[in-house]
């Protein structure tokens, strides 16, 4: 599979040797080859490490069927924003260079086990997967595209929340994308949400939580407010499993926790039930 060859470069940065990868969760030393073959899931503790949007696409979409959509959309700088570290424009440019992406989400369509779908895959590497005008626009355009073709729509989320460098424009993307999801509901077009580590802030409080089925990867951090903010507010320590996928399942917000290696098959199974009748 293409995807783990591509990601080799990233591993060099996070591993302390060329042979081993250290699990960020349990610190187990895993042979790099095993780590890659295992889709960056720790064989000891089932920690699902973050992976890129192209890796996810290659894991889920039938080989040779992907067509990117709304690929022209890239970052905007509606506020002409600048912070202590300099202009947002430069930060965005650096992110593009580093990741080879134009925005925090990859959008397109392809097939899953032969079933055509539209898909939006967020990429945490690109400015923390933040929801920006470009990201919201890509998701909305792709949802509308899915609606026109009556293709099921799947979003894989991985995001720290709204991109504050785009201020109110990024906040409004929550409303914009949710309105697009509402239209899919009215059309009876399936919409599935896959929540991966992390899915927080404005992304958790918009499209990520609204799937016909909400699916999460194991142990993924999912929540609205930040852990530290909550602890400061309520002046209590939070339980360890707070805001994990498992916690959300228990509290009624997630339908299923699915291992990365089983995700394609699981989506395919669900899609059978949403087929047009």
């Amino acid at each position, binding site marked *: 599979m293409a995807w783990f060859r591509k990601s080799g470069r990233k591993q060099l940065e996070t591993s302390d040797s060329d042979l081993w990868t250290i699990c960020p969760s349990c610190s187990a030393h895993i042979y790099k080859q095993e780590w890659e073959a295992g889709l960056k899931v720790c064989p000891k503790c089932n920690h699902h490490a973050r992976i890129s949007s192209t890796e996810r696409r290659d894991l889920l979409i039938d080989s040779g069927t992907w067509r990117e959509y709304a690929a022209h959309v890239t970052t905007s700088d509606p506020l002409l924003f600048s912070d202590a570290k300099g202009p947002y424009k430069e930060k965005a440019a650096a992110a593009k260079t580093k990741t080879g992406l134009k925005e925090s989400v990859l959008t397109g369509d392809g097939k899953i086990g032969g079933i055509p779908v539209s898909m939006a895959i967020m990429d945490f590497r690109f400015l923390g997967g933040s929801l*920006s005008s470009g990201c919201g626009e890509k998701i909305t355009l792709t949802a509308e595209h899915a609606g026109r073709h009556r293709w099921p729509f799947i979003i894989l989320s991985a995001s720290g929340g709204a991109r504050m460098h785009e201020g109110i424009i990024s906040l409004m993307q929550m409303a914009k994308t949710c309105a697009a999801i509402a239209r899919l509901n009215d059309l009876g077009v399936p919409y599935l949400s896959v929540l991966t580590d992390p899915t927080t802030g404005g992304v958790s409080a918009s499209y990520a939580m609204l799937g016909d089925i909400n699916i999460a990867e194991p142990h993924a951090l999912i929540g609205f407010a930040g852990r530290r903010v*909550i602890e400061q507010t309520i002046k209590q320590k939070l339980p360890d499993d707070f805001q994990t996928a498992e916690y959300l399942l228990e509290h009624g917000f997630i339908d299923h926790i699915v291992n990365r290696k089983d995700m394609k098959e699981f989506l395919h199974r669900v899609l059978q039930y949403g087929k047009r009748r």
Partner: protein
Amino acid sequence: MALDFEKPLEEIESRIGELKKLNEKSDVDFDTEIAALEKKLRSTSKRVYSKIGPWETVQIARHPERPLLRDYIQGLCTEFLELHGDRCFGDDQGIIGGFATLRQHRVMIIGHQKGKTVEENIKANFGMASPDGYRKAMRLMNLAAKYKLPIVSFIDTPGAYPGLEAEARGQAEAIARNLTDMSTLPVPVIVIVTGEGGSGGAIGIGVGNVVLMLSNSVYSVISPEGCATILWRDGSKAPEAAAALKITADDLVALGIVDEIIPEPVGGAHRNMDATIESVGDVLVKHLRRLKKMSAKRLIDQRYDKYSKIGRYKKK
């Protein structure tokens, strides 16, 4: 209560007050001095308020004496029939709502509730709503849809409540659900930001056909303090963050988010509550009249277009 940048005004005001007292008690006449000071107050006011920046606006937007939802209701509505409960868990006081008759118009009012006293603020969680609050709001909006009543949503919140219970009961889900369901409401939805428009907690009841803002209110993706802490690594840089985030009414009109600004009296809404409330009433009625003529389908389509245009990417 005077804000920091209002100190010069406060000094003049207190001297006027002293002279007025003297005037009453003593035989000496201070009328000339008072008149001079009042003139000075006017010019200083003009100078002070004409050059306030975004951070000063934040202070005014959060001013403890600023009119709150219940002031608007009391000032504008001949009737307010509060409705309670989310039919599921509770009756959050961070968001309230009910039937109201706003200058002859029967509407559903919902909005964040802040308090003026400590007691009120604790009850309303300082205007930070819980999932039950968002769900109650949506229940009332759905009821408005059944009864074909326009909805007026008053936004004034630091943000959705960040608590253990709120997360456990689905703060994220509740806001997401509202964003979705508000987008297809078949009745007019007027949103008005009267104080703080705090992030997801604000937009959670903020999807409208028209979005209005008081001239000294703010609306932001994150609080200036929060932004400064993250991007400047220094919470005291909040003024810089406030400026960078473009959170004032003027900024938001320029960005195409806000449709109309409702001007406040010099010095802010709290310096002349009655006048502020009257202005709000006039603008609300103007939009109510306009939107009530639109069909359900047009209202839904117009609302969809409004949001889908925000951040529309134009090829460069």
